[in-house]
């Protein structure tokens, strides 16, 4: 975080942006796990962030897994090769996908990138870290409020994190290719977006309708 804090008054760097976006994913995923009851609610601790009370799971195994995946996500964000992150929630017994939380990542054309000389591209309108985090907070709020309309997940559920990368992206050994795990006859809701001026992230959810 230190790197981006220094940059706060100036335009955000690719690295700083990757860091913020990764952090958002961390809170977002933990929040979904809590709100959707994938992990028992007593395994969560409350944390104050983005002016919100957020829930972070203190299950060690989960946090080890998340930090591993998030580190990889951050690397890909810095390489600008990550197109999308999908959190798939499926029922353990039937393996049926119940919800798909999709985060689309776009490179902002106006964004200043470190490897780009940047002479031709205009500097992005300045956006403070606080502004960016406020946008992120609004998305998190929407995710949280979505519980009100999403159907109840009554069976024991598990989750997976899918990363959509460029076709020619080299992937580390411990990663493997996966299906998209799309829900048949789903209902979809597009939530809000946020932008760091380097990355733009759109959030949406598709879920198995209950009627």
């Amino acid at each position, binding site marked *: 975080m230190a790197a981006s804090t220094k940059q706060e008054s100036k335009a955000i760097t690719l690295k700083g942006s990757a860091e913020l976006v990764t952090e958002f994913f961390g809170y977002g995923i933990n929040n979904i796990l809590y709100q959707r009851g994938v992990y028992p609610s007593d395994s969560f601790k409350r944390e104050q962030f983005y002016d919100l009370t957020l829930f972070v799971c203190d299950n060690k195994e989960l946090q080890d897994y998340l930090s591993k995946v998030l580190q990889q996500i951050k690397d890909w964000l810095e390489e600008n090769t990550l197109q999308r992150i999908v959190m798939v929630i499926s029922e353990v017994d039937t393996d049926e996908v119940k919800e*798909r939380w999709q985060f689309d990542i776009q490179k902002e054309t106006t964004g200043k990138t470190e490897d780009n000389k940047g002479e031709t591209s205009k500097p992005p309108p300045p956006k403070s870290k606080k502004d960016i985090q406020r946008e992120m907070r609004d998305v998190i709020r929407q995710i949280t409020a979505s519980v009100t309309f999403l159907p109840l997940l009554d069976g024991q559920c598990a989750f997976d994190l899918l990363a959509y*990368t460029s*076709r020619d992206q080299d992937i580390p050994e411990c*990663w493997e290719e996966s299906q998209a795990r799309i829900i048949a006859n*789903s209902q979809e809701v*597009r939530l809000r977006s946020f932008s760091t001026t380097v990355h733009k992230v759109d959030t949406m959810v598709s879920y198995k309708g209950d009627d």
Partner: protein
Amino acid sequence: MKGNAVFFTRKRDGCRRILHTYDNNFSSNYDPQIHARLQEAEARLKTCHEHIETLELELNQKAEHASKERMKSDKLEVEINELRDKATKQNSKQNWKKLRAENAKLQEQLEVYEINKEQMHIRGYYDPTKTKIVLEEGGCSPEDVSLLSKLSPEAAPSVVKQVEDFKAQLSSAEMKNQRLKEVFKKKIQEFREACYALTGFKIDVIRDNQYRLQSMYAERSADDLLFESSTKGEMMLLATDFSSQLADQIETYLSRYNSIPAFLSSITLELFNRQTQTIVIKLIHMNSTELDEHQLAQILEKNQRTRNVRKIESLTAEQKNEDDDEITFEEAAIFLRGAGIIKSKDIRYLPEDEREKLSREGTNQPITEEEQKNRIKEMTTKDASKHPDLLQVI
């Protein structure tokens, strides 16, 4: 028509020429015959003229008609062209309309496609030529979040130990429980046996607050008494087949004196007495010829409840057995004599028919006390004075 006109004109000219020749040739020498021919020719010529004129008129008429027709056709042609123009215009307009409709439809489809594209996008579809989906192999599943593994690793050993402790405690408690059960069972059995020995009644609990009593001296295993304790703790006698035979005792001890112990005692005494007699009767009824003294002793041992047999010192074990081994009357008598219980002169041999009757009654139906007494008196002793015990019974 024109051809005709020319033809006639030529013919006319030809005729004229011929006439001239004739004129030239024959003017000088006028010949009436020729003149006639001339006139005839002239008439013919006139006819020809007339014909030509008609034909010319006709021709003109036809020409006029033709030009009219041509005009008409020109007009029609114009009209046709006009119509054709119109038609093509209309056609293109229709086409245009059709195209426009098609265009709108396509536009709509495009919109639907756009919406679908958006929907497909949200649903997670992607372009596999540009994108691939990857996930971390290990994954993470909340299934592992069972109660035990949810505890931190530091806490886990102590929990495991605790679980083991509890298990050990549980098994020792179970063992203790088992031992206690065994002890209780043994003690209860002892107690029951003691009760049986002391009171002469075997008491079973059938269900909550219902007790079944069976006398040591019962004649049949089915002869039992049922008691039920009320909520106040009062014991009530319930009807059984056996109790229905005890009207007297019930009347005397229960109804009048309200004493169950006295009632039971009277039954004990009654059955005890009856059994003593029964044994004797049984001995007398026996009809098998194969029995030695040893076998008889066994039977008597089994039936040692009779006072008579108690005198045989070797037969004291406490046993109850309903089995009726068979011995002959003679042998029984011999045994009894040998044992010094009954002297031969005390035994009166019944006539065959009477014996059969007794045998039938003895096995099939209960004999009333009075009858029994009479019969035994009859068949046993004449000189009772030497056997006061036996006589007492009889």
